[in-house]
Every structure is written in structure tokens, then in C-alpha cells.
């Protein structure tokens, strides 16, 4: 099989385009979505020019749709990111991710004494302070983005 021409790299016929990611946050989303485990085409672009944001990041993933948990992870890392669903080269659905009021399962509490780190249970965080901080509903510890783990 011939190599793809470099200029065609990044074109996907089916999959998802995660656009308008805050500049510098694409790698965080890559890690949070565990994309290293995916063996389809993934393109990451950093610091693209953007009219709206000045600079933005972008991720394209072939043959992939995001689950609700994965969408919530994207929203936590970069609010207002746009999700484009591509089918047969056409954008069939497009929306801006929204931070949920309550985040379940997808992040772990950074308090080692929290019961969620002892018992096999799902975590629950209330999103507070204009979507900038997360309060564990069990131990009540408030955590910011830099402190949380996926």
C-alpha cells in the first residue's frame, strides 16, 4: 500500500472531530480519553489559529464516537469545546460540550482518606464556582482541575 500524501493526513470519513479545544489542552484530553489504546487514526493539532479563541487545539479520531463519560471528561478539561460527528465525510451532528452539574465515576477524589478511595464505589462530584472546581459529595473536599485524576 502506498503512503498517504502528507497533505491528506487528518482527513477522516467517519469518526469524531473535537474542535475549539483551549490551546494547550489537547494532550490532556488525549490522556483523559485514553486514546493511546485506540488503534484507528488519531490526529492532534496544537496552536491552530482561531478567530474565536486566538489559538486552539483540535483532535480527530477515526471510527470513534464519544460516550457520555468521555464527553464529560472533555467538558471538564476544556469547556465550550465543539464536538463534530462525521459520517461518510459529512458532519451529521455538531454541538458544544456542556459541563454537567454532577460528575459521576470519571474522576477520582484526591483525598486519600475519602471513602471513595477505600470502597469499590463510584465517585460523585458537584461542579461549583462557575465550573472551575469540583466538590466530592462524600468527603466534601473541594478540588480544582489541576488536583483531579481520571
Amino acid at each position: 500500500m502506498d503512503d498517504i500524501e502528507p497533505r491528506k493526513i487528518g482527513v477522516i470519513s467517519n469518526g469524531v472531530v473535537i474542535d475549539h479545544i483551549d490551546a494547550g489542552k489537547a494532550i490532556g484530553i488525549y490522556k483523559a480519553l485514553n486514546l493511546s489504546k485506540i488503534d484507528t487514526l488519531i490526529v492532534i493539532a496544537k496552536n491552530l489559529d482561531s478567530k474565536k479563541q486566538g489559538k486552539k487545539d483540535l483532535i480527530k479520531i477515526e471510527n470513534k464516537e464519544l460516550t457520555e463519560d468521555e464527553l464529560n471528561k472533555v467538558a471538564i478539561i476544556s469547556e465550550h469545546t465543539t464536538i463534530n460527528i462525521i459520517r461518510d465525510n459529512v458532519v451529521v451532528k455538531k454541538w458544544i460540550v456542556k459541563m454537567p452539574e454532577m460528575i459521576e465515576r470519571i474522576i477520582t477524589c484526591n483525598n486519600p482518606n475519602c471513602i471513595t478511595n477505600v470502597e469499590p464505589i463510584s465517585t460523585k462530584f458537584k461542579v461549583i464556582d462557575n465550573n472551575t472546581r469540583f466538590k466530592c459529595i462524600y468527603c466534601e473536599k473541594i478540588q480544582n482541575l489541576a488536583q483531579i485524576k481520571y
Partner: protein
Amino acid sequence: MISETQIRSVISIQDLSVSKINYILSIAEDIEKYPTKYKDILNGKVVANLFFEPSTRTKLSFETAVKKLGGNTIGFDDISNTSLKKGETFSDSIKIISDYSDLIVMRTKFEGAPRLASEITTKPIINAGDGTNQHPTQTLLDLYTIKKEKKRLDNLSIGFFGDLKYGRTVHSLVEAISLYNPKVIKFIADNHFQIGKDYLDLLEKKNIKYIVSDTYINNLKDLDILYVTRTQVERIVEPIDIEPLKKKYTITKEILEKEGNKDILVMHPLPRVYEITTDVDSTTHNIYFKQAKNGVPVRQAILCICLGLVGEKIYG
């Protein structure tokens, strides 16, 4: 719709509105005034006292409260005698114990465990302390004591003194008293033990005046209440030598006479170690022993309310 007088569990002071707190305090007052009215109210009820972490005062206070209401207790105060030691999950233990009892009182080092327990069982859960997080029944007895001694909870000047970082009683009381529009709150502690920023943010959001200081000098004159706490050496994470701090953070009779005022009342959740000298005990400033005693009627009130045994007919 849940009315203001319906309280199923007491997990965190953050769950309680002013009217719910006032309701609990009013029932406690009634119990203290008319104890015979309540002496058999828990007849046939079993309260499980699960003390996964050691406790003397709180455990005895709950046991006394149950017995004064005519109820029975089961439980443990040593985790080594339980199935948890054999590897049973906390969730399984709660499921099983809730089948044996009508209400569960628990103390644990794991923060959030009482909240989890309240999701596992439909029986009421009372948090008797979860790690550094909450100790809501202590807060309620603190409020009861303040109201009893000062005849009000609003518009007070309160100083917190000692270990404000690790002491959960301080955290819960700051949250609770912020509901009553205090005049000023002062946090007097060494920098290593100063109150967390989240609590200052809370006061700022509510437009409540606060002062952060590392000395009692010039900070006691205008106070109604001085709430002193023990250094929680068992919870300190970083290596700190507390010896040099002891003298600087000890309240004596002389200090109260020189720096305080004649009406300043000194509270302490006890046990006391060095932070209040015994010469304060005989002064009119001391209300910390009364405070400990008030734990019983307040816990009696919580038990009655959570079990749905008091209502408008008694309250009204």
C-alpha cells in the same frame, strides 16, 4: 415535600438549614426542661453505635442519650472485633448492621463514610465524626451552648483559637455560625494551623467580616465567644515541632483578665491538653464543661427527630 422539621439523617452541617438547626435546638431545650416526657420515647428501639475510630466522650454521650430515652444500644468501639478486620467491605457491614438496628451512629477515619452509609440503608445515619471532615452533632451542641449562654446565635463576635486547620469542630462551626450573620469571626492560630482558604471564601461570599491573626494580643477585647481547640497531633501530615507553639497558644486566666472582657465565654470541644490552663476552670469565662454536658440533650433531640418520634405535637 419534606418539611423543615423532617430530618432523616445528620451527616453534615452543610445539609441543615437555619430552621432545621433551630428545630433541633428547640427539641433539645424541651428535653432538658421536661425529661420525663421523653424518658420512654425510644422504648423498643435499637441504636447501633459503630465506632470504627476510638472515642470516649462522643460514644458515652450517645449511649447516655439513648438510655435516657429508654432505648437500647449495640455496637463496637474496636474495629479488630469486627468482620471488617476479616476483609468485609464497609458497605456490606452497614447493610447487615442496619437490619439489626433502627438507627446507626458512626465514627470513622474515612471521610464521607457516613454519606455512603446513608445511600446504602434507609435507616437514619448520624455522623459522630468522619476524619477531618465533619462532626455535626458537636456543632449542634456548640450552637446549643452558645444559645443557652448568650441567649442568641446571631450578631456574635467569635474567635477561633488553636488548631484551626485539622480541627473539624472549627470547620463545621464556622459553616454553621455563618448562617446566623455573625458580627465578626477571628481566626487566631499559628500559620501552620491556620484556617483553610475555602472557609475564608465562604465568609467572603456571605459578606461576613473576618480577621486572620497569629496572636490573641488585641484580639480578645470585643469577643463574645473564644472557641479554643486542641492541636490534632494525630492528624498532622507535615513534620512540625509544636513545642515552641505551646506557650504562645495557651489561654490563661491572666490573659483573659488582661486581654479579654468580663463577658467573654471560653469554649472547647475537649479533651483539653495544654491550650487552656486549669485556672480558667473556676472563672465565669469557662463554659467548656457545660458544653460537654449539653451533648446529651442535643443528641437525644437528634435521635428523637431522626427516628420520627417528635413532631409538631411536641414542638408546638
